[in-house]
């Protein structure tokens, strides 16, 4: 792809692979008596594609929810960009550069594709309530500037034809793409994708794979993704962490993980 990674507004960002962006240490999460995650540790390095896999109910989505502040783990700590945090709220996580998509698309159904992606710019827009209310001067200039970024994203994801349509009416595959666009509009450093290819046909999956790789290469965005399609996981990711019943059972490159006996058991079952 491009020689030098750039973010969407055109400023180059340093792509030092290997530096730790986020580390999860000994995290446990309980809902009443149910342990969703127990004592999981792993890290995500800058610029990599990190996959989180595991059977249903393994705690993958809960893990993402902890990272972006929807859930607060009872034990353990999460360090992001060198800052250890106690109870981070989702909008603070968003402000710190963590964007995400959801397992079952969570879009603003009544709004157009354009407006949906524009909401991703919320934190980048700085004009106050009163300028906004007047819709004049600086607020207007700002609106135009951000609109341009959004149009670039729309081009990138090849969804020009649905710009003005309300997203509730779009087919599922396209909704997933709009959701990715909204996350990209935040110009995130860490992008969390919760089953970005669930419920897609082969062609849509291939498109989505391509977009994920492009985002990673072109913008240098670090990506953590949950996915069930093993072929996709093995192709896309640099490293894989495997969860089962809320515990980590393996961590390593796709090839290492594939060979791991515990992983094979978890996926194929063990003879009792």
């Amino acid at each position, binding site marked *: 792809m491009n020689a030098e990674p750039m973010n969407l507004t055109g400023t180059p960002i340093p792509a030092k692979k290997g530096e730790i962006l986020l580390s999860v240490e000994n995290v446990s999460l309980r809902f009443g008596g149910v342990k969703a995650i127990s004592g999981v540790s792993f890290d995500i390095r800058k610029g990599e594609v990190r996959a989180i896999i595991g059977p249903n109910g393994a705690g993958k989505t809960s893990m993402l929810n902890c990272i972006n502040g929807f859930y607060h783990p009872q034990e353990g700590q999460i360090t992001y960009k060198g800052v250890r945090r106690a109870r981070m709220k989702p909008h603070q996580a*968003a402000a710190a550069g963590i964007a995400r998509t959801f397992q079952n698309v969570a879009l603003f159904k009544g709004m157009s594709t354009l407006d949906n992606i524009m909401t991703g710019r919320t934190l980048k827009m700085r004009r106050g*309530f009163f300028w906004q209310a007047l819709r004049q001067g600086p607020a207007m200039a700002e609106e135009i500037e951000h609109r341009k970024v959004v149009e670039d994203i729309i081009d990138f994801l090849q969804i020009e034809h649905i710009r003005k349509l309300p997203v509730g009416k779009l087919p599922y595959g396209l909704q997933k793409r709009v959701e990715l666009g909204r996350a990209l509009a935040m110009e995130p450093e860490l992008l969390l994708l919760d089953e970005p290819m669930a419920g897609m046909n082969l062609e849509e999956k291939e498109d989505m794979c391509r977009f994920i790789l492009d985002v990673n290469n072109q913008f240098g965005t670090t990506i953590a993704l949950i996915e069930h399609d093993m072929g996709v996981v093995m192709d896309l990711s640099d490293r894989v962490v495997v969860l089962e019943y809320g515990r980590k059972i393996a961590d390593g490159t796709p090839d290492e993980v594939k060979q791991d006996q515990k992983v094979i058991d978890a996926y194929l079952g063990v003879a009792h």
Partner: protein
Amino acid sequence: MSEVATRPAPNLLSNGWIKTGLILIGVVLAAIVGAQLDSSGTLHKVLIDPFQQMVSAPDLLVQTVWEGLVSGVLYALIALGFVLIFKASGVFNFAQGIMVVFAALTLVGLHEKGVPAFLAVILTLGVMFLLALTIERVVLRPLVNQPDIILFMATFGITYFLIGFGEAVFGGNPKQMITSELYLPKGAIDAKILGGFVSFQKIDIAAAIIASIMIAALAVFFQYTRIGRALRAVADSHKAALSVGISLNQIWVIVWFTAGIVALITGIMWGARSDVSFALEIVALKALPVLILGGFTSIPGAIVGGLIIGIGEKLGEFYWGPLIGGGIESWLAYFIALGFLLFRPQGLFGDKIIERI
């Protein structure tokens, strides 16, 4: 949060408008035929005579429609307050009515204490902002993620708290709105229309103009600004809104404050036409049929619904009321709303609720 309830839509004909139209035509035809055959004259009195009156005294008709229009605008304003909060938080805010009273009382009360009128308006806005802040902090935040019915009940709590608090601070006696101090016009314009005199209260004209400006401003604000987009986003999906960095707490304060501003303007307008008293709170319940008519999530719906209810009930009272002894104004609105529920449960402009199974 935006899924309100599952309402099975009637499925006789695919297009609701066509169906409603056909039924209306059928009713009118049956009525005319019935009236011709009717010997005792009851049907004639119900179905033919009122329309003959309308045609023979058009000035009276204009007067009635105008009065309906004005109360319709005020209903629309109250409904607008409901819609704002419902859109953004999925909460049916029962306290909107008392917020109108509370805002008006604060304004008048401050003026009585010797605060100049316009400073009092600004201070009242400040009070409404504090109220929004308090409601978010004390009521909404602890109840986040609770079922809608819990939040609905919480707004009952807010209502009774505000009634008690308002009475304690300002007393229970009706007060006069400070219309002249706010440079709102008084008196009436008599216009010669269709062979008679129709009297337009100047305050009513002012109310209509101010309401229109405010509604237009709100519509632009919602449609084209970052905060407006954020408000709509919160209405659609809480978790998605959180994930793009929208702070629910901040949005709720903004929404309740906006509803507070709407309440203050409504309070001034209603107060100018009658007294400022807690009885106004009952008027706020008229917003319910308006919302059923217009749809709970639609600003244009609140406006059109308000006008239909306002005009409908004045026409009903004036032309059909005498047939059953008058006083139908108090329940006709609910009757119209009930009819609407049968044919278009999502309202004129509301989002059709489709539940996937």
